[in-house]
C-alpha cells in the first residue's frame, strides 16, 4: 500500500512510512550509531533515499527490509567516519568478532564479487536452524547487545556467546568452501 504511494509520487508516503516503520528504523540506527541524534538523522536520510529510489525499485513484498537496509548502510557510513576519530563502539567490536572468519584480517581491499558473497552468505544462513539464524542476524545485522539477544531468546549470555562463536566458525567454513575467505 505505502509503496503504491511512492510509485504515484504521493508525498504522504513518507509520513505513512514514518508512522509504520519509524520506530523500528530508529531502533536499528540507534543500535548501530549508539547516538539518538545521529540515528534520527540516519532515519530522515532513509526516507529521502527511499523517495528517490522508488521508482525504479518496487519493494512491495519486502518494504521494511528495503528501508532497514538503507538505514543500516547510512548508519555504518556514519560509524566509519566516527571510527576515523578513534572512537570505539559496538561497530568496532562486531567487526573484530567477524575478523575470526578470516585467516588474516588485513585492511587491504580485495575485489570480491558481491553476487558470489551474497550467495555464500545466503547459503550459510539457509544451512542453519531458524532460531540460530535469527540470533546471528540480531547480532551482526541488527547490532543487538548480547544481553538483548539473551533476553529476546531466553538463553543465558554465555550460551548466546558460545552459539555465536560456533556460528562464526560455520560461516568461516562456508566462506572457505566458496573460495571467498582469504
Amino acid at each position, binding site marked *: 500500500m505505502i509503496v503504491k504511494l511512492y510509485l504515484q509520487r504521493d508525498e504522504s508516503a513518507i509520513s505513512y512510512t514514518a508512522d509504520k516503520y519509524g520506530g523500528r528504523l530508529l531502533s536499528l540506527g540507534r543500535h548501530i550509531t549508539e547516538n539518538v541524534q545521529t540515528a534520527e538523522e540516519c532515519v530522515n536520510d532513509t526516507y529521502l533515499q527511499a523517495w528517490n529510489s522508488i521508482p525504479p525499485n518496487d519493494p512491495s513484498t519486502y518494504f521494511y527490509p528495503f528501508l532497514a*537496509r538503507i538505514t543500516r548502510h547510512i548508519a555504518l557510513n556514519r560509524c566509519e567516519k566516527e571510527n576515523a576519530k578513534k572512537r570505539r563502539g559496538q561497530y568496532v567490536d562486531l567487526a573484530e568478532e567477524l575478523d575470526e572468519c578470516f585467516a588474516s584480517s588485513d585492511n587491504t581491499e580485495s575485489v570480491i564479487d558481491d553476487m558470489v558473497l551474497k550467495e555464500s552468505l545466503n547459503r550459510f544462513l539457509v544451512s542453519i536452524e531458524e532460531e540460530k539464524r535469527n540470533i546471528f542476524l540480531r547480532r551482526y545485522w541488527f547490532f543487538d547487545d548480547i544481553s538483548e539477544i539473551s533476553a529476546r531468546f531466553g538463553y543465558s549470555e554465555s550460551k548466546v556467546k558460545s552459539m555465536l562463536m560456533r556460528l562464526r566458525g560455520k560461516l568461516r567454513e562456508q566462506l572457505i568452501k566458496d573460495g571467498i575467505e582469504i
Partner: protein
Amino acid sequence: MNGKTLLAKMELIAPEFIEAADKPRKKKPIKWQYPTALAACLAVSVFSGIMMAVSPDEESVIAAASPDAASLFSEGGVMLILFAASILAALAIAALLIKDKGEK
C-alpha cells in the same frame, strides 16, 4: 576482506531473513508440570516432617483420640523414608526446572 567489510556486506542477504529476524517473539508459556510436581513433593515432605516431629506425649493423646492415626506415628521409619524421598524428588525437579529455563 576483513570483519568490517563483511559487517557492511551483510546487507546483501535475502530480505526474508531480515524480516524473520525482526519479528516479535512469542514468550514461551511456563510448563506447569514442573512447578506442580515440585509443590506436591514439598507438601509431602512437610507433612512427613511434621509427622516425624510429633512427640511421644502427643502420640498417646492422638492414640486415645484415634487408634487409626496412632498407627501412622508408630511407623516413624516409613515417615523418615517418605520425608527423604520427597526432599530428593523436590531437588531433582528443581534441578530440571533450572536446566529447562537455562536451555530455553
